[in-house]
């Protein structure tokens, strides 16, 4: 009789503790997701810009969000979690690219085919828009990243400077270089198209 009571008590305590933990975890999760939601697409786009393939970018995004989740206690110390996430994304992608080069598995855009492109997308890709995509593709990594952060994600120079740990003037210089290169190439193609 006494034994049964003891056992029941133990079971009750264990289940209560478990429930408590679960509720706490869920609260934390939803809170975390709320802070992450606004910039998860940005992380994904930046990763895709650098890693080229959609699948790799998805993996990178997942990995990054998980890393953030694991370090959620430290996140409070940062002023801008978004900027911190962007820095992490940049570092992660550069690491991936480096390890790929080291293992001789360089990803070349021409031999990579996206398997989920719809017809619309393909038509669009044949368009002049895809030309721009390729032009950006051919830029050096740093310029690629800066174009992405400034012209697509529309961050201020100060923010980009913090993310990349560079001076704003250095960013302006390489951004200007990138924009001019793209413009020249476009102009060339445009002229060929007309004549």
């Amino acid at each position, binding site marked *: 009789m006494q034994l049964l009571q003891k056992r029941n008590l133990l079971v009750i305590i264990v289940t209560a503790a478990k429930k408590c933990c679960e509720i706490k975890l869920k609260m934390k999760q939803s809170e975390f997701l709320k802070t992450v939601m606004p910039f998860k697409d940005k992380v994904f786009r930046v990763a895709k810009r650098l890693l080229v393939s959609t699948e790799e970018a998805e993996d990178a*995004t997942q990995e990054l969000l998980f890393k953030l989740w694991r370090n959620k206690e430290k996140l409070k110390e940062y002023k801008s979690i978004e900027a911190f996430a962007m820095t992490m994304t940049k570092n992660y992608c550069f690491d991936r690219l480096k390890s790929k080069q080291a293992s001789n598995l360089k990803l070349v855009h021409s031999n990579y085919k996206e398997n989920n492109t719809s017809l619309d997308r393909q038509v669009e890709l044949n368009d002049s828009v895809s030309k*721009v995509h390729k032009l950006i593709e051919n830029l050096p990594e740093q310029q690629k990243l800066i174009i992405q952060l400034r012209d697509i994600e529309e961050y201020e120079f100060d923010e980009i400077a913090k993310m990349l740990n560079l001076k704003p003037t250095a960013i302006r210089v390489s951004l200007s270089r990138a924009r001019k290169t793209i413009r020249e190439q476009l102009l060339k193609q445009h002229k060929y198209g007309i004549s």
Partner: protein
Amino acid sequence: MELANIEKLLEKYLNAETTIAEEKELKNYFLNGNVAPHLEEYQALFGYFSTSKNERYTKTIQLKSQKQRWKWLSVAASIVLLVSVYSGYENIQQRKAERVYTETIGALELLSTNLNKGNVAIAQLQRFEDTTNKIFKQPKK
């Protein structure tokens, strides 16, 4: 928007001197259609920027890794093991106590029956003494 203004903004844009607001102005101009012929090459550029911005991360975010699940499982398993060992130990202890109890009772019963046998013998002895007393000690009275 006048063309001169746009041209000036483009010049600034190429030198990376435009602000975000000015760049938005440029985007609006080039996305609205009526683009001057000599600026057409920019249309693709700004068009590309705005379509790129619409790309979304559509997969669900997983916050639990496989590793962590295993960790939790092992914690749960060890708790279960601990509880079962504890209750099993209690059970064994209880059974041991019961066995000892029954054994003692048996022993005590044995003792009491044997004692009772002794009692009967002693009672007979008493009768023997009584009769001897009757026989030998009566004359003294």
